[in-house]
C-alpha cells in the first residue's frame, strides 16, 4: 500500500512540476508577464480555439497566460474572476456577459491597478456600462444576427413564405449564455425578415450521439420545419447527419450554425448547410494576450472588433486547410 501511495504522490508532483515549464522562454518581450482570461465557456471546441489563440500569443511573447472556463455558471465565473484578481496578474481579459453583475468587480479590480479588458462579449453600453479598459471581439448576438441573415436570405431566394416559416435552434448546453445570446441574434434576424414568433430551442447535450438523436427526432416530429440552426460547434456538426437520418434532401431544411467542425464542412459541401459562422474566436484569445501585453507595456487601450467570418461553400477550401490546425 505504501508503495502505491508514494507512486501516486510522485506522479502528482511530477505533473505539478512539469506543467508550468516550457512557456518560460527567456529574452522574449513579454517574459515574466502573466495574464488570465476569465470566461464562462465550457469544454467545447469553440473555447478550445479561443484557448489556442491565447497559447499561440503567449508563446510568441514569452509570457504566461491561463484560461478559466466556468460551464456557463456565472456564480463560478464570478469566483474565478475574484481568484484571478487575488493573483494580481498583469492583466485580465473577461467575458462580460452581464450588464450589471460585472460592474462592481471590474471597477474594484481596475482600482487595484489590474488591467481588465473585455473579450467575446461586452456590456451592451460598452465602456459607458462597465469600467473595463478595452474590448476585443464580436458580440455573440451579432454573430447570431449574421447567420440568421445568411440563412433567411437563402430561404427568401428559394421563394419560401417567410411569414409562416418555422425556425428551430439546437443547443448543447440548454440555458448556457452563448446559446441564449446567439439565439437572440437569430431572433433579431427573424424580425428583420418578418418571420413571426420565436425559434424553438432543442436541448441536445454536449454528447454527439445524443445530440444527433435528438436533432433527428425533432426533424421527424416537425415536418414543417424550414430553418434549423446549431447554436454551437457540436450541434452544428450534427445538423447534417440529423437531417439525413430524418430522410431530408439537401435544401429541404436550411441549416446554419457556428464553427467549422468536420461535420459542418461536410454539410456545407453537400448543401445541407447554407453557412456557418466562424466567430474568429482565435483572434479574441490571441488579441486578448497581445492587447494586455501592450497595455501593460505602453498603456494602449484599443477597441478591436474581431468580426465574424461567414463560411459558405464558396470559401470552404480555405477553412478546410486551416481547420485541422485548430485555428478556425
Amino acid at each position: 500500500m505504501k508503495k502505491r501511495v508514494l507512486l501516486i504522490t510522485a506522479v502528482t508532483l511530477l505533473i505539478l512540476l512539469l506543467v508550468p515549464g516550457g512557456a518560460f522562454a527567456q529574452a522574449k518581450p513579454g517574459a515574466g508577464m502573466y495574464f488570465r482570461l476569465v470566461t464562462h465557456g465550457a469544454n467545447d471546441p469553440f473555447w478550445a480555439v479561443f484557448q489556442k489563440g491565447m497559447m499561440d500569443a503567449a508563446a510568441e511573447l514569452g509570457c504566461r497566460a491561463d484560461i478559466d472556463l466556468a460551464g456557463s455558471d456565472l456564480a463560478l465565473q464570478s469566483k474565478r474572476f475574484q481568484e484571478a484578481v487575488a493573483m494580481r496578474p498583469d492583466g485580465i481579459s473577461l467575458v462580460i456577459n452581464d450588464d450589471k453583475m460585472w460592474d462592481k468587480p471590474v471597477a474594484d479590480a481596475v482600482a487595484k491597478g489590474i488591467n481588465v479588458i473585455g473579450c467575446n462579449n461586452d456590456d451592451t453600453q460598452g465602456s459607458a456600462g462597465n469600467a473595463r479598459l478595452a474590448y476585443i471581439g464580436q458580440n455573440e448576438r451579432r454573430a447570431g444576427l449574421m447567420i440568421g441573415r445568411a440563412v433567411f436570405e437563402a430561404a427568401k431566394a428559394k421563394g419560401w413564405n417567410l411569414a409562416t416559416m418555422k425556425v428551430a435552434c439546437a443547443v448543447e448546453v440548454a440555458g448556457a449564455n452563448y446559446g441564449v445570446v446567439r439565439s437572440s441574434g437569430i431572433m433579431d434576424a427573424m424580425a428583420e425578415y418578418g418571420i413571426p414568433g420565436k425559434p424553438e430551442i432543442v436541448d441536445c447535450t454536449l454528447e454527439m450521439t445524443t445530440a444527433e438523436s435528438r436533432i433527428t427526432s425533432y426533424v421527424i416530429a416537425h415536418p414543417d420545419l424550414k430553418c434549423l440552426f446549431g447554436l454551437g460547434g457540436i450541434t452544428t456538426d450534427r445538423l447534417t447527419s440529423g437531417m439525413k437520418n430524418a430522410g431530408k434532401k439537401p435544401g429541404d431544411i436550411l441549416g446554419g450554425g457556428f464553427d467549422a467542425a468536420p461535420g459542418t464542412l461536410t454539410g456545407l459541401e453537400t448543401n445541407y448547410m447554407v453557412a456557418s459562422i466562424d466567430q474568429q474566436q482565435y483572434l479574441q484569445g490571441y488579441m486578448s494576450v497581445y492587447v494586455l501585453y501592450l497595455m501593460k507595456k505602453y498603456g494602449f487601450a484599443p477597441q478591436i472588433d474581431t468580426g465574424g467570418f461567414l463560411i459558405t461553400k464558396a470559401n470552404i477550401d480555405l477553412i478546410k486547410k486551416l481547420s485541422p490546425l485548430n485555428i478556425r
Partner: protein
Amino acid sequence: MSDSAPVKSPDTRPNRGFIGSLRRTRSLSTFIIAAILFVLFSVFSPGKYFATPDNLQIFLATEAEFGIIALAVGVLMIAGEFDLSVGSVLAFCSLTFVRLFSAGVNGVLALFITILVGAAVGLFHGIITVKAQIPSFITTLGGLMLWRGITLFWSGGQQQGLELENIPGLYAAIGGAKIGFVPIQFVWVVGITLLVVFFMSYHKLGNWVYVTGDNKLAARAMGINTDRIKIACFVLVGVAVGFVSVMQLFRASTFTARAGDGLELSAVAAAVVGGTALSGGIGSIAGVFWGAMVISLIENGLVLMRIPYWWTFTVFGLIIIFSVILSKIIEARRMSVG
C-alpha cells in the same frame, strides 16, 4: 470499508497515542490533509498569492456555499441514501427566489419560501425513495434531469439580475457582510456545522440517523421510524440547497440556469473524502466539513497554482483516489491497533 476480518479481542488493548486519536476523531485525518494542502498551496503558489486576503475571502465565501450542501449530503449518506440532484435543485431554488423577489415579494419572505420549496423537493425525493423502495440513486438521478429541465423551461434559459440594493440588511446577513476579515458566509457554515455536529452527536435524532443508516432492521425493531428519518434527511438536503441557492445568488447577483452544474458528485466526493461510507451508518460531521474544505481547497488552489485548466481534472481525480486510499490506510491501522 467494512472489513469483516475478525478483530482479536480489541477490548484488551488501550486505545491511546496518535493513531488512537485518529480513530477517536475520524475527522482528524481529513483535517490533516486539508492543513497540508493549505500549507502546500501557500508556499508553492506562484507569487504566494494563495494566502492573501483577497483570495482567502473568495475562497471562504465559496467554500461555505459548498460546505453547507456537503454537510447535508453527508447526513443523508450517513442515513444510507444518496442525493444526485443537489445541483439541479440549487438552480431551481435560485430561480424561485429570483422570480419571487422580482415580483415584489419581501426578501425575507422570498428566502423563506425558497427554503420551503427546497424542502418540498427533498420531501418529494424522500417519499418516492422510501415509500416505493427505489434506490435513491435512481430517484435523484431522475431529479437531476427533472429539476434542471423545469428550471430551463421556466426561465427560458435567460439569466436574470437581482436588485440587491433594495435589501441591504438581508444581503449583508447572507452574502455581503464581513466580520473582520471573515466573510459572513463562512460564519454561516461554521455555525451550521456546529449545529449539525451537536444534533448528530448529542441529540437522539442524530443517533437515529446513524442507526438507520447502519442497521435499518435493528433501528426498526427498536421502534425507530426509519422511513421518517430518511425522509427528514432528504428534506434537510433540500433546506440546505434552498438556503445556499440564495447565498450564491447574493454573491453572484445574477441567476443562471446552469448554476450548480456538477455539484452533486463534488458533494458526494467531499463526504467520502471526509470518511463517510457510501453504504451508510459511518461518517462524522466534522469529517464532512473538512472533506468539503479539502475539495474546495483543491478547487481554489489549482487555480492559484496556475495549473492549466485541463490538468485540474487529472489532479482532482488523483486527489479523490488518493484521499479515499489514505483514509482506508488510517482505517486499517486503526483496526490493527484497536
